[in-house]
């Protein structure tokens, strides 16, 4: 999408980050509580009455939904009627505002994407016209599928974004992708009812996972609460496919860093004819590697029976969420600021007709953030280390709840080492580019 990329972080920062990650990890293991403290079902302080009433008011919700749908329509108009050139705001809206922007939106406001999800509203509209109850499908959604459909569609999206630059920046490819995925999601919703979106819509599923790290949440009893994000994370229900979806998110971000390394660029030159195919395999390899290593580290836990063991990967998967978010911040912060600004500027003229709606924004230097490389590098390292520490604490709390006392500490070691491994890999990718 043009513009600069991040400079590699200085080696010293990577070392300090790695050392603090290691130190804190073992400090958690050695000194932290020995009986589980987090309780996602009950914890939290209710929001002040007026604030809760404002958030829950039908007017607030209607305004939010109308704005979201209007924005979707605006971008869709640019995608369908705008010219196929790089300044078409469709690209920035999809790859920056939607894909990266849903992370801060979910962290700040929780599950807003679910409320605004245009496909849910489309499905609701169609159901209304056909006189069907949108919750009701032909079949109940099979629990065993869990988040696997979301993992699949997430992979389809990162494939579109990362595998072939020609595809990524082709308007017809982006249009085709959204057309196919929307049809599949709507068909799925017709079969399984609108629960399907929760487990299949890649953007809603991603947003829901990240929303579990927000300080705000709606508890199962319907009360809006503010609480320790780790308590919120504890309320993420273990489901099949959770490891799959998180594996795609973490693996693909690591792949994107790796893809811009000099060594890979050299290799890519020699295989230019088969670039798409090889990139597809390597991207899939990164995602599967995360899933397999995570599953392996989970089941390498001692002291419990076979049946129980098979459920462990998804019961521990929530601790990958902060690692993913930390890595996303490190990886996308500057890109989000610069390209987000550019996209907003482009959105003022969606059809490239020379409209001057956002001309007042043209004085902003969108690349300013790149001129503070030290602050940027420090933020990246801190984001990765904080994500790692939150992940380790979440994993520790879950382990002391699930494992028998004798094994509670030793049993955590494989998972702890794996998380250290993820974090060191992340730091290495940021520093080597």
């Amino acid at each position, binding site marked *: 999408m*043009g*513009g*600069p*990329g*991040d*400079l*590699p972080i*200085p080696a*010293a*920062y990577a070392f*300090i*980050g790695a050392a*603090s990650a290691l*130190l*804190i990890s073992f*400090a*958690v293991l050695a*000194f*932290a*509580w020995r009986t589980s*403290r987090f309780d996602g079902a009950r914890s939290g302080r209710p929001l002040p009455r007026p604030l809760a009433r404002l958030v829950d008011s039908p007017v607030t919700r209607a305004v939010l939904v109308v704005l979201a749908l209007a924005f979707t329509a605006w971008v869709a108009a640019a995608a369908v009627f705008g010219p196929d050139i790089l300044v078409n705001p469709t690209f920035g809206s999809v790859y920056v505002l939607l894909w990266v922007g849903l992370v801060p939106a979910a962290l700040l406001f929780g599950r807003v994407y679910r409320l605004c999800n245009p496909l849910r509203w489309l499905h609701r509209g169609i159901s209304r016209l056909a006189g069907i109850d949108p919750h009701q499908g032909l079949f109940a959604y099979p629990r065993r599928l869990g988040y696997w459909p979301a993992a699949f569609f997430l992979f389809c999206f990162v494939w579109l974004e990362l595998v072939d630059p020609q595809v990524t920046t082709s308007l017809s490819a982006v249009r085709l992708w959204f057309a196919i995925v929307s049809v599949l999601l709507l068909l799925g919703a017709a079969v399984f009812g609108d629960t399907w979106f929760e487990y299949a819509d890649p953007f809603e599923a991603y947003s829901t996972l990240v929303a579990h790290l927000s300080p705000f949440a709606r508890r199962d009893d319907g009360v809006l609460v503010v609480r*320790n994000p*780790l308590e919120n994370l504890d309320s993420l229900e273990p489901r099949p496919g959770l490891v799959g979806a998180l594996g795609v998110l973490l693996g693909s971000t690591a792949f994107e860093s790796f893809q*811009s390394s*000099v060594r890979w*660029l*050299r290799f*890519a*030159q020699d295989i*230019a004819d088969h670039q798409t195919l090889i990139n597809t395999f390597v991207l899939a390899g990164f995602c599967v590697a995360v899933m397999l290593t995570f599953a392996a580290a989970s089941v390498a836990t001692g002291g419990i029976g076979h049946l129980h063991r098979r459920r462990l990967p998804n019961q521990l998967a929530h601790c990958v969420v902060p690692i993913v978010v930390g890595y996303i911040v490190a990886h996308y912060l*500057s890109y989000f600021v610069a390209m987000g600004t550019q996209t907003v500027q482009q959105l003022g003229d969606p059809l490239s007709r020379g409209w001057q709606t956002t001309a007042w924004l043209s004085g902003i230097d969108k*690349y300013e953030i*790149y*001129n503070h*490389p*030290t*602050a940027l*590098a*420090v933020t990246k*390292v*801190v984001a990765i*280390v*904080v994500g790692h*520490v939150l992940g380790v*604490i979440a994993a520790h709390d879950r382990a002391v709840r699930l494992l028998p006392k004798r094994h509670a500490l030793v049993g955590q070691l494989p998972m702890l080492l794996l998380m250290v491994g993820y974090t060191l890999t992340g730091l290495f990718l940021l520093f080597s*580019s």
Partner: protein
Amino acid sequence: MRPGRMLALAGALAGCALSLTACSGDSDPADDEQSSGPVKVEITEEGGEVTASQDVVEAERGQDIELVVSSDAADEFHVHSDPEQELAIEEGDDQTFTFSIDTAGEYEMESHELEVTILKLQIS
């Protein structure tokens, strides 16, 4: 340890990391105009292959980057900075191009004809 204390510890360690890194200095190269002469890079394009004297070229903001290109074919080199650099390469030896980039960051320089990355510019 309680969750609050744990977070405090994490915060303290992050703080240490911050202060350590802050000591390593962050002079703004745009401020001191003392930046030394141009950074020189030699690039050779021959038989559909392009090679550069450095894979990674480091320069400061505003510092001149001087490319000396020898090629056996016409080509166009792109640097996706803003404004974009487009260098028209002709057949022949020792063609010189000089440009500078004002925004820090990493930029790839690509051959348009061969569709490959030639080198990376790291502007700090």
